[in-house]
């Protein structure tokens, strides 16, 4: 079991984000402990990605607080998040298609020689070692990532996130574009990273994608948090009721559950 008596690794408190007059996220609070996987689920437009973008620095919150190790932090740019050990794997992977795999892994954090020149060999070497661990079948190190398959591109995005000793990992729909074998691979990787003590936010619109891997599940609906539940205490149907009806496990009736199927 996860020890949740200490200080959470991350705490998002009363986060609020609005686009124009639309409240994409309203007073949502979630937290994450070291070595824990929190599944963040909800339908399309529930505000999961928007919420998590405040943590990754892609879009600052209008109000609310972010605490890391109990200390309030300001994250106004992806650079700030990375400096705090927060790495993000975006749904669209955020790869520069015209650049090769090592170039993408080290994008914005290139290794350089003592003259400040790009050390391509060192970056390729590091990427080869990384891929040996993450996806041993990966061999395309010198072609632009545009010519790679969905799974290979995913590997590049994951490699980028884990190489820099992330403490907090955000994965937005990590398996949406993957086949079953690759999905299993990502699942194994998540378990491995969790055992290393990394805290992981796993975002998905489909509870079945994250149920197995999650320790706790936070459900969002229309920009609000429906609730956070311990996975051992709920069934997938109960979570489904939270996602679709916005009802917490105690509030759900048999009739509701019947309607879900």
């Amino acid at each position: 079991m996860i020890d949740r008596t200490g200080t959470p690794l991350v705490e998002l408190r009363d986060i609020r984000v609005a686009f124009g007059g639309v409240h994409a996220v309203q007073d949502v609070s979630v937290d994450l402990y070291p070595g824990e996987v929190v599944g963040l689920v909800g339908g399309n437009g529930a505000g999961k990605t928007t919420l998590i973008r405040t943590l990754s620095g892609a879009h600052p919150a209008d109000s609310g607080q972010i605490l890391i190790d109990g200390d309030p932090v300001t994250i106004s740019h992806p650079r700030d998040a990375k400096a705090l050990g927060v790495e993000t794997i975006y749904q669209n992977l955020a790869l520069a298609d015209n650049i090769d795999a090592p170039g993408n892994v080290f994008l914005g954090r290139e290794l350089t020689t003592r003259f400040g020149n790009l050390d391509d060999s060192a970056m390729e070497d590091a990427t080869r070692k990384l891929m040996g661990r993450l996806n041993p079948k990966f061999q395309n190190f010198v072609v632009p990532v545009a010519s790679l398959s969905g799974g290979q591109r995913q590997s590049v995005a994951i490699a980028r996130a884990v190489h820099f000793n992330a403490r907090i990992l955000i994965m937005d729909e990590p398996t949406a574009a993957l086949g079953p074998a690759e999905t299993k691979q990502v699942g194994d990787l998540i378990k491995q990273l969790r055992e290393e003590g990394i805290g992981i936010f796993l975002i998905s619109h489909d509870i079945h994608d994250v149920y197995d891997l999650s320790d706790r599940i936070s459900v969002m609906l229309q920009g609000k948090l429906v609730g956070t539940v311990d996975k051992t205490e709920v069934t997938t149907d109960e979570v489904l009721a939270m996602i679709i009806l916005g009802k917490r496990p105690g509030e759900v009736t048999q009739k509701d559950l019947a309607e879900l199927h």
Partner: protein
Amino acid sequence: MAETKVSAAEQEPEAAPEPEERGSRSLRDALRAAEVDARLLGLLGALAVIWIVFHIITPNHTFFTPRNIWNLSVQTAVVAIMATGMVLIIVTRNIDLSVGAVMAAVGMFMAVVQHDWLPAWIGFDHPLTWVIALAAGLAMGAAIGAFQGSIVAYVGVPSFIVTLGGFLVWRGVAWWMVSGQTLAPMDTLFRKLGGGSTGTVGGTWSWVLAIAACAGIVLLQFTRRRQRARYGFRLRPMWTEISIAVIACGALLLLVGFLNRYYLPPALATATGHEGENISLGLAYPVLIAIGVGIVMTFIATRRRFGRSVYAIGGNPDAAELAGIKTRRTIVKTFTLMGLLVGLAAAVQVARLNAAVSGLGTGMELNVIAAAVIGGTSLSGGIGTIVGALLGALVMQSLVSGMVLMGIEAPLQDIVVGIVLVLAVTLDTIFRRRAAR
């Protein structure tokens, strides 16, 4: 650890891993193994065809003569210098339409500095005049570039509009600086920047430079090989390494030997006390400047973090931003670099003409953009090489030069260059589409 529950995901059958595409890629893999750029070979091929065809069809076969190729090299230099900067601009999905007008403003400024200001301070033909004038021009070019780039990057006005404005503004500024006068002549040393019979390094130095360049090529190959070996990466087969070195050095030495057969006109040789001797002009300064710019820009584009950022922004601006790249600052830098190169090109152009007029560089922006695009730079961003742009400039100038030798009128020359531009991009698009499959 949380205990594992049986779930829907585990019930799904394990599918076979995605079949890897092979077969159709084998030829490209082979090319990749030799690390030879197919697009570059295509450009060199096109250039060879143009030179051979023109040599055959020009009256008296005057195209492939030392004299014409020497002139061609000098004529290409100005556009080539600017095209290297334009590549980086276009790679970031921007454009600079103002380079011709900026050239006029900067050229005029350098002329004013050496013609009107400096003589009053340090006298005529002072040995430092050319340095001060050049530095002033480079500074002004960089400042204009930084200014336009800042509006693009920080205010968010499309570069097309900002530089279209610049296209009008800087031409007007050039006129206004001297009320439309022509400034001439230029400082004696400054004039060397433009080539001409005094602006060359001579035959001996041309050989020295060529041999040094050969040594550089081999050294570069050797360092790269040792670097890859250190990490245990697959090395390029030795025969490829040797072939590349032999072909590159051989071509270089042949070209320099050929150019060195362009001699000082007999009358000038007599005037300089070498009556009856063949004095090689050797490589012209503008050509050396263009080659130097090409090397430095290639280095910046491929070996520096700035260059990597430029290509990342072109490939996926959002990804670049999310990766922590300072995208706006990078854009400003590309425009600043472009301005600096325009300043350098303006110096060469003013020195060549030995005069500054407000019409300097009219229409040049289109030649520069065309050179970059013929050289394989994609207007949709992310793709383009410095070497390609240099070759693109050479291809365009070769066409013009050949047509001039054939006595074809200017309007028809424009028609041909226009068609070649569209044809080159069409072929490139088809090539890319097939490669993407």
